[in-house]
C-alpha cells in the first residue's frame, strides 16, 4: 500500500498534469487576434516579396510564445512540404481566427492575397484595443459588482436577518414595515440567484470550448462579418474580378453558414447593389447608392462597410458604457435599502426601549 504522502504526491502530480493538459488544449485552440493577424501579415508580405512564406512563419514561431509558437512551426512545416497558406491554416486548427481564415482563403482564390489581407486587417475592429477595452472593462466591472453584491446580500440574508428576527421575537415586537419590505425583496432576489451562477458556468463552458464559443458568438459577429465581406468584394471589384464569380467564391470560403447562404442567394445577373440587397447584404438605400450611374462600386462598398463598422462600434461602446452605471446604481439602491431597513429597525427598537 503506498504511503499517504506518495499518494498525495501522485494525486497532485496527476492533477497538475491534467490541469496543464487541459490548459494547453484550451489555450492552444485559438490564436489571439494579434497572433492571427500576424500570420496573415507575414503570408501577405511573403507573397508580395515573392519569398517562401515558410521562412517567415518559421522565424516568427521563434518570436512567439505558447501554443501559437507550436502551431506556427507546424504550419511552416506544411508550407515547406508544398501546402498553400489556406491548406496550412485548415490543417492547423486555431492558427488563425475564422474571419482571417476567410480573408486568406478568398485572397488566394482570387490571387490577390496582399490587397485582401490589407483590407481585412485595416477594417478589423477587434485589432483595435479601444473597443475590446471598453467591452472587457464593462464585463469586469459587472462581475466584480455582482460578486460583491452577492457576498454582502448573502451574508445579510443568512446571518444578519435571522438575528434581527430573533431580536424582534425577544422584544415581542411587531415586524416594522421596512423590514417586511426588505424580506420581500430578499425573497424575490433569491428566486433569481441561480442566474449569475448559470451565466458564470455558461461563460466557463464557452471560454473552454471553441466549438460552443463559435456557435454562441456567430450571431453577434454577423454584422461585422457582413461588413468584412463587403470590403472583400470591393477588393475583388478593384482587382477586376467579375462580381458574380467573387460572390460565389466568397460564399465558398465563408465559415458562417448563414452568411454563406446569404452570399449564395445573391442573383448572378443585374446591378450589383440590387443583387446584394436581394440577398439582404445591403439595405435598399445603400443598393441605390451603389447602382447610381457614376458610382464606383468598390468605393461605395468600402464606404458601406466602414459605415456599418462605425455603427456597430458605437452600439458596443454605448451598451458597454450604459450597462455598468445602470447595474451599479441598482446594486447601490439595494444596498442603501438594506442599510436603511436595518438602521430604521434599530432606531425603532431603541425608541421603544426609551
Amino acid at each position, binding site marked *: 500500500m503506498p504511503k499517504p504522502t506518495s499518494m498525495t504526491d501522485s494525486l497532485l502530480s496527476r492533477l497538475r498534469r491534467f490541469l496543464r493538459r487541459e490548459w494547453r488544449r484550451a489555450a492552444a485552440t485559438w490564436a*489571439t487576434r494579434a497572433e492571427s493577424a500576424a500570420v496573415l501579415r507575414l503570408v501577405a508580405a511573403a507573397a508580395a516579396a515573392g519569398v517562401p512564406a515558410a521562412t517567415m512563419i518559421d522565424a*516568427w514561431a521563434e518570436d512567439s510564445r505558447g501554443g501559437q509558437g507550436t502551431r506556427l512551426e507546424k504550419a511552416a512545416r506544411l508550407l515547406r512540404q508544398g501546402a498553400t497558406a489556406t491548406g496550412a491554416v485548415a490543417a492547423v486548427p486555431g492558427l488563425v481566427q475564422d474571419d482571417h481564415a476567410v480573408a486568406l482563403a478568398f485572397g488566394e482564390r482570387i490571387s490577390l492575397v496582399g490587397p485582401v489581407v490589407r483590407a481585412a486587417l485595416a477594417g478589423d475592429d477587434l485589432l483595435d484595443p479601444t473597443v475590446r477595452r471598453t467591452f*472587457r472593462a464593462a464585463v*469586469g466591472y459587472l462581475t*466584480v459588482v455582482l460578486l460583491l453584491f452577492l457576498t454582502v446580500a448573502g451574508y445579510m440574508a443568512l446571518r444578519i436577518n435571522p438575528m434581527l428576527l430573533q*431580536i424582534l421575537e425577544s422584544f415581542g415586537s411587531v415586524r416594522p414595515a421596512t423590514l417586511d419590505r426588505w424580506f420581500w425583496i430578499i425573497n424575490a432576489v433569491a428566486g433569481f440567484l441561480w442566474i449569475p451562477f448559470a451565466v458564470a458556468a455558461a461563460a466557463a463552458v464557452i471560454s473552454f470550448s471553441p466549438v460552443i464559443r463559435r456557435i454562441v458568438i456567430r450571431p453577434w459577429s454577423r454584422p461585422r462579418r457582413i461588413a468584412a465581406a463587403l470590403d472583400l468584394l470591393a477588393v475583388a471589384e478593384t482587382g477586376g474580378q467579375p462580381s458574380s464569380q467573387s460572390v460565389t467564391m466568397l460564399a465558398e470560403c465563408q465559415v458562417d453558414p448563414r452568411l454563406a447562404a446569404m452570399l449564395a442567394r445573391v442573383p448572378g445577373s443585374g446591378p450589383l447593389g440590387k443583387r446584394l440587397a436581394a440577398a439582404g447584404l445591403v439595405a435598399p438605400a445603400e443598393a441605390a447608392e451603389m447602382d447610381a450611374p457614376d458610382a464606383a462600386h468598390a468605393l461605395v462598398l468600402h464606404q458601406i462597410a466602414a459605415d456599418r463598422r462605425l455603427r456597430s462600434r458605437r452600439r458596443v461602446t454605448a451598451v458597454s458604457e450604459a450597462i455598468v452605471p445602470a447595474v451599479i446604481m441598482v446594486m447601490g439602491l439595494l444596498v442603501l435599502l438594506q442599510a436603511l431597513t436595518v438602521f430604521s429597525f434599530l432606531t425603532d*427598537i431603541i425608541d421603544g426601549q426609551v
Partner: protein
Amino acid sequence: MSDPANRPGDAAAGKPAATGSPTILERYLAEAVARHRDEAAFIRLVAAELPPREQPPWLAVADALATGDVHRGLAAATTGIACWIPLFASPRADPRLPTRLLQTAARRPHVAEARWLLLAYPLAISVLALGLLGFLSATVMTAFEALFQQFGMELPLATRAALAIRPFIASIWEPLFVVAGLVGLTWWLAVRWSAGSSVSTASFTRTLARLVAAEIPTDEAVLLAGRVVAAPALDRARPRRPLSFAAAAALDFAPRTAAILLDAVADCHDDRARGSLSLSQWFVGPVLLGVVGLLVGFITVALFFPLLNLVGALS
C-alpha cells in the same frame, strides 16, 4: 537609388562592418548634413505642426542642417536620432523624403501618454481607499471600539482584526502612502517594460526596414536602428529583442524584399504592443474596485455584527 554617388552609406563601401563604433553614426550624419542642407526649412515647417514638447529634436535637426555643423547634428542625434533616419535613408533631392519625414513626425508617443493614464487611475483609487480607511479608523471605528469596551464584550475575530488595524493605520499612514506610491511606480515600470518592449521592437524593425530599403549595409542599418530605441549591440546571428528572429530572417533577403518583410514584422509587433496595453487597461479598474469594495465591506460587517450581538444580548 540609381545614382550611386548619392546613395546613403556609400562612403562606407569596402569598410569593415559596424562594431558599435560611434564613427559610423558620425559618418552617416556628415553625409546626411551634406546631402540634405536644403531640407532645413521644410523640417522647421514640420516641427511647427507638432506639439511644443515634440518640437526640440526636429528643430535641432533643422539647425544642424542649416549650419552644416556635424557636431551639432551629433548632439541632436543623442536626443532624437529617429528624426535623422529619413535623412540617412534618402539620397539627395529624393521626392519621397518629405513624405518620410512627415510619417516619422506623425508617429506620436501616444503609448507614453496612455501609460500615464494607466498610472493615474489606480493611484486615484488607492488614494481613495486609503483615505476611506483613514476616515473610518479615525471616526467610526474609534466610536465602536469605545462602545464595545464599555460593554466588555467578547468580540469576534473579524471585529478584533478590524479594530487592530486602526492604530496601525493611524501610525503608518505616511509610510503607507509612500508604499502605495512605490507600488504604483513599480506597476508603471512593469507596464512600461511589457508594452514598451513590443513598442520598441516595432519601432526598431520599422526603422530597420527604412534603412535596409535605402540599401544601407545590413550591419550598419542594425546598429543605427538599435540606437533609435537605445538598444545595446545586436548580433544577427543571435537575435534578441529588439531584433526579432523574423526580422533577422528577413535580413537574409535582398534589400527591397527585406524591407517589405520587415514592415510586415513591424506591424505584427505593433499589434502585440496594442494588445498588451489593452489588457493592462481593462484589468486594473475592476480589480481595484473589488479590493476597495471588499475592504469597506469587511470593516462594515466586522463592526456591525457585534452591534447586533449587543442588541440581542440587551433584549
